[in-house]
């Protein structure tokens, strides 16, 4: 059996390549790759030794290779958005980067061959390629839908063509593919592919809308959420969202450990950012004791 659970290693940047609006970063991280399953993420320390940024940044794993020329590597796709991601984007080959991973609960794979639709929003497509490989290895049909604000924020359109039955692209501004949202095209894809399961990664608003469409079409949904995380390893309780358990009880659940992948219908999307009053241990209404 492959080793499992996260490890912490002093990794090294092998390359940083611009891809559209993103950066494709390859890291040497001995021992991590053999533990990775699709949907896992890594948490990277940022800013170097004298950094004022204490918290790690989390990234979906795009690709993990047990041994390339250099040993085990992990690849991520990042949007340079704030100071931590900008620092990573500015790294040069051989710069050290501390890596913790793989983290989180990966995508659940169907036991039997099934028709799977994979939906990525922006850099959210990153984890879908290794997922597609795993699904195809199980004899699943794979269709891909990629959406983004504009063409430069799509990642992996060509790659996706290689690994899937069909690729559908949407952009908010119409710069590539259908002008609009992924949820506009999903019903047609579901119908065409006779989808059993939809797998998705992307912004929360997309996951919410997608979960609703999936439920309406009787399609199971596996969604990888993105909540602000202080630790990434399950010890701080910052990354919670309200999730309904198999027992019907809503709990504030850690997205770094129980997630980032959840069943779409288990997340109480409308209540994300709140503690629903019927949540286990919710504060009593004012006036109560």
């Amino acid at each position: 059996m492959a080793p499992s659970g996260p490890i912490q290693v002093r990794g090294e940047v092998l390359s940083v390549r611009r891809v559209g609006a993103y950066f494709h970063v390859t890291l040497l991280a001995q021992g991590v790759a053999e533990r990775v399953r699709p949907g896992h993420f890594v948490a990277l320390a940022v800013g170097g030794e004298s950094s004022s940024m204490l918290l790690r940044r989390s990234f979906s794993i795009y690709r993990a290779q047990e041994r390339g020329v250099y040993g085990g590597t992990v690849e991520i796709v990042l949007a340079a958005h704030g100071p931590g991601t900008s620092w990573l984007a500015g790294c040069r080959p051989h710069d050290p980067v501390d890596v913790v991973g793989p983290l989180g609960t990966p995508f659940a794979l169907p036991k039997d061959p099934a028709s799977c639709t994979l939906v990525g929003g922006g850099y959210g497509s990153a984890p879908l390629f290794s997922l597609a490989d795993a699904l195809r290895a199980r004899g699943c049909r794979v269709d891909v839908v990629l959406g983004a604000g504009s063409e430069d924020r799509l990642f992996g359109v060509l790659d996706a063509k290689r690994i899937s039955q069909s690729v559908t692209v949407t952009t908010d501004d119409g710069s590539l593919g259908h002008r609009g949202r992924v949820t506009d095209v999903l019903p047609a894809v579901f119908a065409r592919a006779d989808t059993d399961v939809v797998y998705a990664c992307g912004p929360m608003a997309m996951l919410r809308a997608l979960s609703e469409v999936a439920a309406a079409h009787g399609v199971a949904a596996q969604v990888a959420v993105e909540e602000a995380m202080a630790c990434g390893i399950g010890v701080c309780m910052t990354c919670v969202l309200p999730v309904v358990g198999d027992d019907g009880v809503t709990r504030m659940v850690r997205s770094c450990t129980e997630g980032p992948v959840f069943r779409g219908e288990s997340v109480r999307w409308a209540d994300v950012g709140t503690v629903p009053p019927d949540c286990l241990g919710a504060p009593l209404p004012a006036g109560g004791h």
Partner: protein
Amino acid sequence: MVDLRTSLGSAVLPNPLATASGCAANGRELSRFFPLSELGAVVTKSVMLAPRSGRATPRMAETPSGMLNSIGLQGPGVDAFVEHDLPWLQAQGARTIVSIAGGSIDEYAVVADRVNGAPPGSVAAVEVNISCPNVEDRGLVFACDPMAAAAAVQAARRALDPAIPVLAKLSPDVTDIVTIARACVGAGADGLTMINTVLGMVIDTGTLRPALAGVTGGLSGPAIRPVAVRCIWQVHAALPDVPILGVGGVRTGLDALQLVLAGASAVSVGTVVFNDPSAPVRVLRELHDALEERGFERFVDAVGYAHRSFEQEYA
């Protein structure tokens, strides 16, 4: 080899390194990075009587060399904790310092009583987190008033077997921490943990609103280390015989050494675990080496050492 043994009241620890409450959950997740038995102690997340959902998100914001948090003491409640977590920790060979919290004096008493019912040997000490709002007194924080602080500590102390040392965890957000420390010791605390987080706030310049759903939050991390050193220094100067579990911004062995030289008999690593999950064992190693380089043969000789050289020079 430096003799690293230390003690917090009657709790004897093989070494002075511990986790910090709320920064290590109840140990399971960190045990994937190192064996918990290697630490002097594991301090668990503050537990209350009933299960608690905690606050809404966002619960955190990064700040320069620190972070702000407002978790709202999410947890399973003391019964589940005693049933599931304590035995597991004991099986790992960890020495567990159980952090308890309450919204009323009565809740402190009841939670302590439940902890007291845990299997013998599974509780090395109890830490009383008094940085909680008192629902019976307009939400005033126990730790901010000597009487309220003492009452909470006393409630816990009375409910517990005298063989289990009680540590009162103090807040730095007070005009005079020595007064609060004295009140807690007077109420039966065998030791003190210092410091809890510093009250802070971040405003999100995108939404133009407070960054945390809870509006204010607790500032932690290296940013507050000088405040922790100062509080430990002041209290150790006033109460040199009361053992202190130091916490606040420890990132390296030399940081831990600062707290020790100021008067801490043991040191917790909190927020820095988020940066480096193996920090507690790394800091222990670094602290050992720093003590050795400085010629200390026993850890306990370094506790409060900065006062000694200071008194010699200036007295």
